[in-house]
């Protein structure tokens, strides 16, 4: 085939997907940045260029800072907890324990359920006085507590749901990676007299690093994307105690219809995601050993 014909064929094959991507990914990402420098168009006040005004407002908006700190807290707990639990689960179901099939299914099931549906179940679970959690804690002699209604515990309560949902999903990647570790490594380690903990720490854990990188990137993205459960559990409350960044964007954009300010908030979220991508490709990929 001639080069020019190949080029035309190639671009024709690519065209439909590229057109959709341009319209619903590249253009909106660009338009977000542009709109963040304009005011929100209103019926009697057309959109006009306002420079950095939206960002100035953002810096002085206490709810924005609350959302950022909530989101960082949410990320700081969900990422290590779900990855740690996933690793533990994978190590457990990789061994020949009793009823391994059931255990594996129990860990993985939350992954296939809709977040909005499981949030309903968790709402019931957390219900003051007669929810299951309250009943169990009551039996153990703890006083009643409104887990979702109190500012001190609401964020922790929604974070629990996210960890529960994610750990089983990450487990399967660790399980696959564990099964690919050649058995002669464990035989060699045993001959050297290494304890099981030493074997995990010095052999399995390092060999799992590429998987950990992959899971970590996913966990970071999810920490800034997972907001479905908030709609059922807390609606961002009480008093913005559980408002995450994307949830705040939704509120500003679709409850207050302040699209320009929502665009500036989205620009912040895009910056976080871009930074994650840079860290992934720039730093981590170079330092982690691939077989």
């Amino acid at each position: 085939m001639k080069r020019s014909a190949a080029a035309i064929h190639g671009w024709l094959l690519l065209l439909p997907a590229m057109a959709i991507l341009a319209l619903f990914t590249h253009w909106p990402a660009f338009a977000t940045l542009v709109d963040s420098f304009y005011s929100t168009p209103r019926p009697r006040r057309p959109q006009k260029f306002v420079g950095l005004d939206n960002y100035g407002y953002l810096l002085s908006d206490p709810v924005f800072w609350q959302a950022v700190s909530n989101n960082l807290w949410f990320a700081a707990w969900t990422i290590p907890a779900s990855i740690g639990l996933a690793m533990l689960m994978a190590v457990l179901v990789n061994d020949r324990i009793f009823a391994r099939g059931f255990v594996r299914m129990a860990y993985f099931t939350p992954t296939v359920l809709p977040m909005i549906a499981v949030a309903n179940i968790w709402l019931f679970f957390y219900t003051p006085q007669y929810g299951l959690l309250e009943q169990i804690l009551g039996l153990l002699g703890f006083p009643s507590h409104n887990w979702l209604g109190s500012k001190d515990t609401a964020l922790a309560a929604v974070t629990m749901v996210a960890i529960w949902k994610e750990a089983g999903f990450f487990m399967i990647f660790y399980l696959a990676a564990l099964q690919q570790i050649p058995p002669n490594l464990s035989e060699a380690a045993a001959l050297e007299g290494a304890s099981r903990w030493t074997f995990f720490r010095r052999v399995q854990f390092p060999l799992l690093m590429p998987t950990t990188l992959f899971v970590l990137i996913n966990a970071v993205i999810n920490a800034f994307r997972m907001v479905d459960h908030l709609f059922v559990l807390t609606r961002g409350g009480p008093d913005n105690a559980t408002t995450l960044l994307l949830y705040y964007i939704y509120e500003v954009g679709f409850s207050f219809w302040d699209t320009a300010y929502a665009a500036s908030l989205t620009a912040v979220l895009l910056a976080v995601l871009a930074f994650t991508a840079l860290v992934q490709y720039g730093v981590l990929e170079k330092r982690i050993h691939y077989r």
Partner: protein
Amino acid sequence: MRVAETYGPYEPRGTGRLLESIAAWMLAILWILPLAYAVWTAFHPPEFSVRFDPTAPLTFDNFTRAWSAAPFARYFLNTIILVALVLASQLVLCTLAAYAFARYEFPGSSIAFALVLAQLMIMPDVLIVENYSTLNTLGLVDSIPAIALPYVASAFGIFLLRQTFKTVPKELDDAARVEGASALQTLLKVYVPLAKPVYLAYGLVSVSYHWNNFLWPLIITSSVESRPLTVGLQVFSSTDQGIDWAIICAATLMTSAPLLVGFLLFQRQFVQSFMRAGIR
């Protein structure tokens, strides 16, 4: 799965195996507890919602009440149409694009590929404000295609299929061309059949994702005619159903049932699909 029957030196035996099993079991019970609780509540009369009496009578009543309390039949239909529309469009668009990236050399292909990969980080999920305004301009707000459109060109699908197509021996491609097959015929006759497991994996992941997706459909739909199950469930459980947990749990299980049953029946395929789709 492991084939060898011998135990590895670090696999627990005897008491160790029992202790590790108990630990794994406790975690498993903790993990399944919320779901088990919902199942209990959904299959018992409301007065047993928070009372655990093994002699409580079983009932299917909560499901029939939930089914008739909201247009769930319509929501199911909408979700099925949505999931089918998304998957069908994704398969076509991603296959064509992946073929171009895997087997054609053309100017700008690496830039185009980088532009595709950008979507792995900047997902439609976070571009809700601008995508709403685009669809508003197109006059598509509150329709099922509007829910689907931002997702039909999936960077993830393109990447996955490109990797697979690259492993197809070039000789098979050449042989088909020698016999006079066109580019599209070669794609359909040689590449697509060889990538079947990848299509299955991608299909399962895509169906689960879009069956469960919530935020974007919530924003873009406003009527019963286009609302998918997840949004329907949210509307149903947030309006005046506040106290009747039995009926909410029934509706919740109903919404998740197709995926849950599919998962229980085809556990291995599900797990392997999610794994295959994840390891790049």
